[in-house]
């Protein structure tokens, strides 16, 4: 909002105060209509459809067939929480992650939850759900301490505070206020130039970043609960703006266990589900939903097995030839940069890049060791990555297309990559640098009737 005021004032050349007052006026005028819109919202679930009538001046009737509903998302941003209202979004199968769906801007929480019950259980509203069904069974929670620790070691929440800080610095500089410039100048004088001082500064900066990340993690994921209800899972989280996401279990295409090197040391992991069509709107923009933002690795796997009993942790390693590829890809770029910098830039830059190249060698090694795949008990396990390691368990019924690809380097090394495309919004997962025989073998096991006629040696239709 503040940014918007700033932009408008910049563009129109009027003072921000005037712009702010105008916007406030607009809000005051629009408010009664919004309230009336809320009062006038009625819904009906019947004949396999959800019908919502809303609006004051323009009455609108929106209809969504129930079997196209992928999820019902109830969220309560801060402003809504103050008034006891929630936002509802019913996501349907058409269109991309950002389009369509049915949105109710501000309704009572009890109405929203009744609507969700009605839609997801495909019963007309007004049916009596037992108290146990309504409550559901809590599968997992996360203590705040774990969230803080996980956040501090994840680096994930750094982007937002860093961006905010950069924005603030820019604004201060633009404000061009005399005393601020003086302060900045004195601040620059204070920065140490001796190695010990610089080292201390770096450590302090890292500690600050970790602290901010921990706080961010606690705010976003605090109070996390994973609740099991008939046919679906509900993930609730958030200390400030509480958010609840409902996942239709039959739409889960894959489970994913994630960790990173610091997390592995701390024995932490996260569990995510790749769901066809869960709405974007928060950071999980591509149909990935957190089932457990952080927890002990054992508990994460236990939870995965509870949600999907066919889950397994078995993996077969990839061919040795993949090792050199991982090493080269990890270290080559910084090494090349170091060589270039040695010629063109001051020597500390070259040294820094060379150090990065050396540090990337164990990363490359770890990336190779992380590679694995195995099709077992009806789940395709795929793992890759080091700094961000993901172990996916793909449900073969959720795969919509397959692609085997082979770059010239892979061809020389006798490797290829098998990629399984999941349903809309869920992305894809791959088996990276596998032997071609293994790729073909996996294809044959996943879709025997489809793939067998395509294997070498099988007769082509209309041949000879």
């Amino acid at each position, binding site marked *: 909002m503040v940014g918007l005021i700033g932009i408008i004032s910049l563009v129109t050349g009027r003072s921000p105060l005037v712009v702010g007052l105008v916007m406030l006026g607009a809000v005051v005028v629009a408010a009664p209509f919004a309230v009336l819109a809320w009062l006038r919202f009625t819904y009906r679930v019947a004949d396999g459809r959800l019908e919502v009538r809303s609006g004051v001046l323009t009455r609108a009737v929106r209809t969504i067939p129930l079997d196209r509903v992928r999820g019902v998302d109830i969220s309560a941003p801060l402003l809504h929480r103050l008034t006891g209202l929630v936002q509802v979004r019913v996501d349907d199968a058409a269109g991309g992650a950002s389009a369509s769906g049915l949105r109710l801007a501000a309704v009572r929480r009890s109405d929203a939850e009744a609507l969700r019950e009605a839609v997801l259980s495909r019963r007309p509203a007004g049916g009596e759900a037992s108290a146990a069904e309504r409550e559901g069974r809590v599968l997992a929670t996360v203590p705040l301490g774990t969230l803080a620790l996980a956040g501090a070691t994840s680096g994930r929440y750094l982007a937002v505070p860093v961006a905010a800080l950069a924005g603030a610095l820019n604004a201060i500089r633009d404000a061009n206020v005399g005393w601020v410039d003086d302060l900045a100048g004195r601040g620059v004088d204070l920065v140490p130039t001796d190695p010990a001082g610089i080292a201390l500064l770096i450590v302090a900066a890292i500690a600050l970043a970790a602290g901010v990340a921990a706080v961010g993690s606690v705010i976003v994921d605090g109070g996390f609960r994973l609740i099991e209800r008939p046919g679906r899972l509900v993930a609730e989280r958030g200390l400030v703006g509480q958010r609840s996401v409902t996942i239709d279990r039959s739409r889960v295409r894959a489970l994913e266990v994630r960790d990173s090197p610091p997390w592995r040391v701390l024995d932490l992991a996260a569990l995510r589900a790749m769901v066809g069509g869960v709405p974007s709107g928060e950071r999980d923009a591509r149909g990935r939903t957190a089932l457990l933002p952080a927890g002990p690795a054992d508990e994460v796997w236990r939870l995965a097995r509870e949600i999907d009993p066919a889950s397994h942790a078995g993996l077969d390693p990839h061919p040795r030839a993949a090792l050199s590829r991982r090493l080269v890809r990890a270290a080559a770029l910084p090494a090349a940069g170091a060589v270039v910098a040695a010629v063109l830039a001051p020597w500390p830059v070259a040294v820094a890049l060379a150090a990065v190249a050396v540090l990337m060698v164990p990363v490359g090694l770890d990336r190779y060791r992380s590679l694995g795949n195995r099709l077992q008990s009806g789940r395709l396990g795929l793992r890759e990555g080091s700094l961000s390691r993901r172990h996916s368990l793909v449900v073969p019924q959720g795969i*919509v297309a*397959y*692609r085997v690809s082979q770059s010239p380097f892979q061809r*020389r090394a006798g490797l*290829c990559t098998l990629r399984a495309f999941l349903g809309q919004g869920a992305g894809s997962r791959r088996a990276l640098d596998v032997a071609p025989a293994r790729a073909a073998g996996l294809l044959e096991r996943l*879709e025997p*009737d489809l793939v067998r006629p395509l294997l*070498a040696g099988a007769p082509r239709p209309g041949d000879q």
Partner: protein
Amino acid sequence: MTGDAAAQTEPRLRPPAESLDPRVKRLWALHGLIATGVVAVLGIVAIVVWSLAGDPPAAALAAGLAGLVALGVAASLVGARIAYRFLRFEVTPLGLYVQRGWITRSWTIVPHTRIQAVETTSGPLERALGLATVEVRTASAAAARIPGLDEGRIARLREDLAAMAGEGEAT
């Protein structure tokens, strides 16, 4: 295409049965030649402007440009033939199978039950040659694209795919 040595380094998938319409070679060659032409024109303009403005080694530049253009022409013609040989497709009873690429190769398999839409597009050059590109869309980002098909083949492809998609589970 799958000799003994290749059999060990490539997935043992046989090539799909059908090739594209041969006219697509002309189309791709034309694309390449047009791009080369644009570069040539830009280069000539640049050389002319530069000669008028200053004192450049005009002969060397002109030679360089001529070499570039020759390379472009050769690449367009040869590239079109190679790309044609390495883009093949097949409608099998259970799915669509497309092989594509010479330098980086890929084999794409889409089960019929997963196909959500079949889209046909054609640029002006394609239309002039009576060809179009078919894009088969699934619920994911993966679309299988088959360029260079004539209308008759496309109509038959649509019928076949529609018939085989049947009552599959939609995603």
